[in-house]
């Protein structure tokens, strides 16, 4: 049957919605990032590169850029490490396996905003259960003002996000582990390979697809982090936890829409640059259409 007989117009609703509500905002965003669009002014004036000039002189942008990258790198690394460890643990024949899988995945279905509020209480310097716990154990150097101390705030936000997303990676790794034939690891075991050797030479290579997907998803997702940071620290103290999306929100709230759009454009460029390898990886996985 001829391919060209399939009606092209079937794709139109999706194409139109995507073009109008995803691509068009990005394109007009390029224009608005060159304007002084402000909530307090009626007219929008073209000001050329002014926004960008101002942005690049702003130490806050550098902070947001660095923090976003630190956050993304740390979350990607730890989410995978914790997720993989949990998957290996649950892959042992545990009695409560299904229940545990459900519990570890649970935070992923709750709104990040709500999780942020829960943890704001948990990190409370005096009464929060984190400090209560360490105080009880007598580990005094772990009793800290986790969210308001510039030394720890970013770390705390990262840990909270790991708590939220590790279960997701775990499930993906668990699914990967299911595909590894039992006899393979058993025969390696008979040959005298220890746990670590078996993991390194048999299990991990076979987990490669799950690993790729997990890393890519974590990277892209974590660069777009917003709610958790907004609720926990609002980018503070100072700008020590400022990320792109909190920076955009704060500029947006003060009405500087053109400026906020320029920041959004920089995020767009950053994510696209990191995302190109992702795109290539996905193309590779794709069988011919």
């Amino acid at each position, binding site marked *: 049957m001829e391919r060209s007989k399939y009606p092209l117009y079937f794709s139109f609703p999706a194409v139109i919605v995507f073009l*109008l509500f995803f691509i068009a905002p990005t394109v007009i965003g390029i224009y608005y990032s060159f304007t002084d669009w402000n909530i307090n002014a009626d007219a929008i004036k073209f000001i050329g590169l002014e926004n960008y000039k101002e942005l690049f002189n702003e130490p806050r942008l550098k902070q947001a850029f660095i923090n976003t990258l630190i956050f993304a790198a740390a979350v990607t690394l730890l989410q995978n490490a914790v997720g993989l460890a949990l998957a290996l643990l649950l892959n042992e024949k545990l009695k409560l396996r299904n229940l545990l899988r459900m519990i570890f995945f649970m935070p992923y279905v709750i709104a990040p905003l709500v999780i942020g509020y829960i943890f704001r209480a948990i990190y409370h310097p005096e009464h929060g259960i984190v400090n209560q716990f360490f105080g009880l154990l007598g580990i005094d150097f772990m009793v800290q003002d986790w969210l308001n101390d510039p030394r720890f705030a970013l770390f705390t936000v990262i840990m909270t996000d790991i708590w939220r997303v590790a279960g*997701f990676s775990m499930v993906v790794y668990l699914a990967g582990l299911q595909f590894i034939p039992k006899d393979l690891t058993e025969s390696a075991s008979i040959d005298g390979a220890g746990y670590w050797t078996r993991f390194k030479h048999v299990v991990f290579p076979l987990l490669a697809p799950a690993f790729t997907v997990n890393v890519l998803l974590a990277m892209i997702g974590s660069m777009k982090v917003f709610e958790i940071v907004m609720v926990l620290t609002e980018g503070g103290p100072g700008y020590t936890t400022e990320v792109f999306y909190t920076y955009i929100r704060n500029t947006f709230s003060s009405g500087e829409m053109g400026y906020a759009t320029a920041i959004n454009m920089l995020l767009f460029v950053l994510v696209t640059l990191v995302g190109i390898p992702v795109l290539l990886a996905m193309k590779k996985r794709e069988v011919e259409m």
Partner: protein
Amino acid sequence: MRSRKYSPLLLELLAICLALLILIPFFMIFINSFKDIRESALFGLSLPSNWVFSNYEEVFNQDNLLRGFKNSFMLSALVVVSVNLFASMAAFVIQRRGGKFLQGVYLAFIMGLIVPVSIVPTIRLMDLLHIKGSYLSIIMYYTAVLLPFAVFLLVGFIKSVPRELDEAAILEGCGYFRLYFKIILPLISTVLVTVSIVVIVSVWNDFFGPFYLVTDSTKWTIVLQVFNFVTLYSTNWGVVFAFMIVVITPVLVIYLFLQRYIIDGLTAGSVKG
């Protein structure tokens, strides 16, 4: 992979301790939602010295609560319909017809999986289209944001539906609309369930979209109501926690019953993709 060094019991114990790390925060807000204003501000894990149920009364007296649920429910439902319909129609011809244009479309959708939305210009766009702040604007926003994932997943799946089925149907004199509705859609229904789960979880839990796009508080979703409520009541944590419990309980109950489908659905893109 059995390890000889550790007994299964020890591993089980370790896993349970880690699970407690997940459960304790939820327990903390649950137990504190029954405490009075003074005690709930201590965020402790102990039982309330006297059980206060009026926190919940106060929460249920909020008009915003029901309205928030209604808005979240309605938006999720409508976005489920639009994403499933538009994405499956597009995926069908992208996979079957191919060609330069549709290849380009597919590539654009894949790009859409990666790049962030330009949210501030989106507000401007909605203004220019005269739909700023309306339900329609937020539905279109979500549809556009969720289409890439749905198209990506569906194109992959439609590959596994044999072309011979199409050919037989067309030879029998079936039109393309009927082919799509009567033959293709039923065959891909499991993936449509997956897409729906992803859409519902994304829309229900999202704060970002409505925060920027919806200014009228009567149209706020439940997550925005949480944000608003915390801002108003942050002096009484007992009530705030009660509000959060009311908001997350339906999600957790549904999760409890449909956990297998939900977990599989949310990870489908990464496991099969």
